[in-house]
């Protein structure tokens, strides 16, 4: 059976996805480390021995100059491809990773019409949530479920990670319950993402992907702010790698 490989080298996590005969055969995820292409090379060697002759597409922030033969395609095109495959009717993709966030507007046939990115600061990304979880002394998973189950939410007005952290701490010091603070944190990010989404125009069917999409609180907050259902793939972490593998299979590169 013909194989195709997608590699998504994010700033935090490297994802590898192997397609065989059009089905997902295997997935791998590890911390990226440095230099960024190294982890991917190790995963490929362990999982496949050699990628000689296999079509490989690499995407993500570490996509250039990887130490193995591959085509590089931007994460915008790859996420679009992955999401279109999973949800053919998707028109807006919101992707939040470890250190960036982006919104992609799709045409009916899955082509990218437009995109907007936040990649200059940690606000509204996975890193932001990590810091807030630290301030609330809960794990990332707990942070999400706290938010989704909260009764009401506090207002977090600062989007700078450092300022927002001290805002969270002062809310707690004032005796605000942790769930309300957690909800406030997620709503603040969701508002920022909604601003990004409005830049490219919000479509009917919204899909939320990237590592942060595993967070149930984030999905809840997005639905609150956008006022519509938000779809999440079963394995949102791998959407970019899936798109890359699909492109590799199509191109046979």
């Amino acid at each position, binding site marked *: 059976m013909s194989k195709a490989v997608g590699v998504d080298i994010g700033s935090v996590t490297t994802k590898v996805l192997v397609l065989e005969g059009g089905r997902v055969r295997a997935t791998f995820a590890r911390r990226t480390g440095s230099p960024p292409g190294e982890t991917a090379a190790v995963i490929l060697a362990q999982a496949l021995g050699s990628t000689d002759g296999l079509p490989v597409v690499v995407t993500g922030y570490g996509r250039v100059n990887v130490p193995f033969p591959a085509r590089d395609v931007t994460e*915008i095109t790859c996420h679009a491809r992955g999401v279109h495959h999973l949800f053919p009717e998707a028109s807006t993709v919101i992707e939040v990773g470890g250190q960036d966030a982006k919104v992609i507007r799709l045409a009916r046939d899955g*082509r990218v019409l437009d995109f907007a990115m936040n990649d200059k600061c940690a606000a509204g990304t996975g890193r932001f949530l990590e810091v807030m979880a630290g301030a609330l002394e809960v794990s990332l998973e707990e942070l999400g479920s706290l938010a989704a189950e909260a009764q009401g939410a506090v207002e977090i007005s600062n989007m700078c990670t450092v300022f927002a952290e001290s805002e969270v701490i002062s809310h707690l010091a004032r005796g605000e319950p942790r769930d309300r603070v957690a909800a406030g944190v997620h709503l603040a990010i969701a508002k920022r993402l909604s601003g990004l989404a409005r830049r490219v125009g919000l479509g009917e069917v919204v899909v939320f992907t990237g590592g942060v999409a595993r967070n149930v609180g984030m999905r809840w907050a997005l639905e609150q702010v956008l006022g519509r259902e938000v779809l999440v793939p079963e394995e949102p972490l791998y959407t970019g790698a899936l798109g890359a593998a699909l492109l590799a299979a199509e191109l046979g590169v």
Partner: protein
Amino acid sequence: MKVSRLKTGQDLKRLIAGHYASAFRARYLRRPVAWVTSGAPVELLRAMGVLPVYPENYGALCGARRVAVELCEEAEAAGYRRDLCSYARLNIGSMLSGRGPLRGRGLPKPDLLIAVNNICHVVVKWWEVTARHLGCPLYVLDVPFVPSGREVTAHQLAYVREGLEEMVEFVARHTGRRLREGRLRRVLALSTEATLLWRRIQDRRMADPSPASALDMFTSMFPMVTLRGTRACVSYLQRLDQELAERVAAGAGPVPKARYRLLWDNIAIWFAFGLVRYVHQRGGVFVAETYTHAWGEYLYEAGDGHPMEDLARQYSRILLNVGLEERFRRMAEAIRRYRVDGVVFHSCRSCKTYSLGQLVLARRVREELGLPTVVIEADMADPRNYAEGPTRTRLDAFFEILEGRLDSVKGRGS
């Protein structure tokens, strides 16, 4: 045929050096110097024998020479916020510290200051600060904004004209120089000649391959900005026009096999010309820039027209003083005339007047003209507001959109 540098680049270097040398020498020649904003009616000053110096152009120079950060930091240490336009910050920093990229010091002190609010309102405060610091007389010319869907009204013309006359009096009072109409008409004729040449030069870029890209034009515009109304400007533009004509005849250009003809919006990123080269590598070439086209607007009627009224009209209609509708009209016209395939919007952290509204323009370009667009975030002079990697990713994605999802990947050799 691939060509890299313009031969007239040598002339350009000489002109730039000459311009700043005369600013440094002016005191000995007893020639009054005025610091002016880029939208100032410089023809009046030229006609009165006053040498105009452009701190904004100096800002571009500092950006290109990569000394903007250290100068900005001087201003920041004095309390100026990083949100302030980097041209303002670096000039204030240079003024406060006495440092700068030319002759190891800042620009020599001017005799008078002229600010016009037809580009932004930052310049008014910036010029006020300068006036206070240097103890220099300042004239602020008020040119009201021209909203969308409206021509310059008779009332506005009369109002700006009065301002211009007042400005002439101000200059006369502080320099002892008079404005003679014959001389003004000669200067206006030279400005008009330069403008017509500049338009012809731009139009040569309709050719395929385009004989020039943004790199050539961002630098070649220097004389249009600082030497408008002089003979030197006209003869330089004649040589440039000649050179581009030769390139067109030879089918030569910086990107001979370009697949995508692009338009650039906003000020150049002076410290990151590598980005334009990257666009070339990816098969794109800039055939037009709203920024360089903005200098092709200074046409004055020869003969009977009233020169002051002409000036009032032209300086009211400059790119940053008109509504978004008119900006879109000009952009759409350039897209059509230069057969543009996509638009790169530089969202410039410093220049709010230029950058506000770009998202609306981008949407209209996509929806009404059906062309892909990309917004990159940067600054014209301060590299601290710019990140190379993410910017390249955006451009890569833009090219993938341009190429169509699959061809993009196929088209690029591994």
